[in-house]
């Protein structure tokens, strides 16, 4: 079942008389029950897309539905179905976690006693009981994030939208959040999240779309996307003599599983099919020629390679 679907969703702004196309056309569908990642560098259109999906922004053109309900003609009904945690979180700093949660429950139409019960449940589930009655402005970054997530979950939404949930979090809180997102997902919540961290998308998301310059460049499971990248990379560190590079190149030239070979003063880099099988063969050949191998590194394709292939740029560079 599709829970979120967009067709050619686009948004342009007028900035000082100039038309800026922030999102040029996003078409995607998210299945109920999955963790869907929306990956891209800063400025690619992730946040603008998120703001349209959360009813905060009307699109310039295109359509979107959530649980079959049109986002822009029935915004109110959509708001009941979705939970949203923005980058800022949006908890009231002067109020305690408990007060924030009770009020949020009331916003979703819960009666006061029901909202009190629900706040208590969430405080326990997210391990906030100890600090529940302190003003949330006094919380650490990780505690604050837990409250933000609790606020998004008050009404047990079918679809939870997270905007850069781990940006600026310490590693421990980040690991905690990953676990929590997996737990919510296991309990039946569909999660749609934006991120510009490759490892996060890889570790957490069952499917993802890569957005660049306002358009989705590719969509699929992390593994399927990585499989589009031909071959694994083997890097050999050698005891170099002036002629070593050429010598090895001659040795390996005829092996059909090697796609490419390049070398410099320190290392030889090979792109090969099935790296794990190719590596022993290559080592044997080089050993027979009496060239000393000092280090060996085998790397599987990463999402960065996928991004590089699709856009011609590295995501790490774009993100900075």
């Amino acid at each position, binding site marked *: 079942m599709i829970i979120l679907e967009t067709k050619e969703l686009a948004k342009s702004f007028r900035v000082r008389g100039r038309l800026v196309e922030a999102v040029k056309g996003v078409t995607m569908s998210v299945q109920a029950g999955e963790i869907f990642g929306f990956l891209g560098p800063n400025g690619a259109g992730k946040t603008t897309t998120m703001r349209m999906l*959360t*009813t*905060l*922004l009307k699109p310039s053109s295109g359509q979107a539905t959530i649980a079959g309900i049109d986002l822009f003609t029935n915004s*109110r009904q959509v*708001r*009941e179905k*979705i939970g*949203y945690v*923005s*980058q*800022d*979180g*949006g*908890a*009231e*700093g*002067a*109020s305690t976690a408990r007060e924030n949660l009770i*009020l*949020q429950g*009331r*916003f*979703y*139409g819960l009666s006061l006693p029901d909202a009190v019960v629900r706040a208590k449940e969430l405080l326990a589930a997210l391990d906030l009981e100890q600090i529940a009655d302190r003003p949330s402005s006094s919380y650490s970054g990780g505690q604050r994030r837990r409250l933000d997530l609790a*606020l998004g979950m008050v009404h047990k939404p079918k679809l939870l939208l997270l905007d850069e949930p781990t940006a600026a979090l310490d590693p421990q809180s980040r690991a905690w959040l990953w676990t929590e997102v997996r737990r919510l997902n296991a309990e039946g919540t569909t999660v749609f999240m934006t991120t510009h961290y490759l490892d996060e998308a890889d570790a957490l998301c069952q499917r993802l779309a890569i957005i660049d310059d306002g358009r989705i460049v590719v969509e699929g499971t992390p593994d399927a996307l990585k499989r589009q990248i031909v071959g694994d990379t083997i890097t050999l560190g050698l005891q170099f003599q002036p002629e070593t590079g050429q010598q090895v190149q001659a040795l390996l030239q005829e092996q059909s599983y090697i796609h490419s070979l390049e070398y410099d003063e320190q290392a030889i880099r090979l792109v090969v099919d099935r790296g794990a099988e190719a590596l022993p063969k290559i080592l044997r050949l080089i050993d027979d020629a009496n060239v000393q191998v000092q280090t060996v590194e085998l790397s599987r394709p990463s999402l960065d390679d996928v991004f590089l292939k699709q856009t011609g740029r590295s995501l790490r560079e774009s993100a900075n």
Partner: protein
Amino acid sequence: MQSLRDTWLLFKHYFTMTMRNPVMVIVGLFQPIVQLLLFAPLLEPIANTEGFPEGGAIGVFTPGLLVMLGITGALFVVFGFIAELRAGVLERMRVTPLSRLALVLGRLLRDVVMLLLQAAVLVGVAWLMGLRADPAGVALSMLIVVLLGLLVSSCSYAVALILQDENAVASVLNFLILPILLLSGITLPLTLAPNWIQNVAGVNPFAYAVDASRALFIGQFSNPAVWQGFVVMGVLAFLGVFWAVRSFRQGVA
């Protein structure tokens, strides 16, 4: 129905928050009370001059201070609001099914109630200093204060949503407030002013609020200034609220 429930919910929330930290409300009262204590006595000698309105120094000065309270209240409203925008609080609320109208009305109601509390304290202090105004007139002038509060608060929110920056908003307000206050005849009545100033003040809506309140304080209910004040403030308050509601609907960057 939902709008009413949500407005009440948000009003209670904002009211509790303000009462928990009422510094701004007290600071806002400080200036008019100082004016009352230190400036009103200076008016005594000229209260008998020709052209000074009826009602005596304090009877003329207090209604003006009520209007000043309403105008300067904008500053305090806006600073809290921008901090809230920054923290993403409003954005979080806008993703919930809360009535869009209530998002504005809940705040405005809090602002108006705070303003009325401040106004009551101000009139109380004036009474202790010898103000003897028509009680029904004072009550009616509180209605002028309500309209004034709606106008000033809603315009402040709309401007804050456009500028989204405390410093920019403070500059705009500083730029506007002094001429508005002077051209409302709050400190010295405009009846003492040369013609050209009186003409300029004729287009200042707040001058109408001051004139209407002054007439009400001395019980002149049939004075044309009274209905004029209500009409000018009523129409502008309505337009202001309309502008604020529209700005809230359109979005928060």
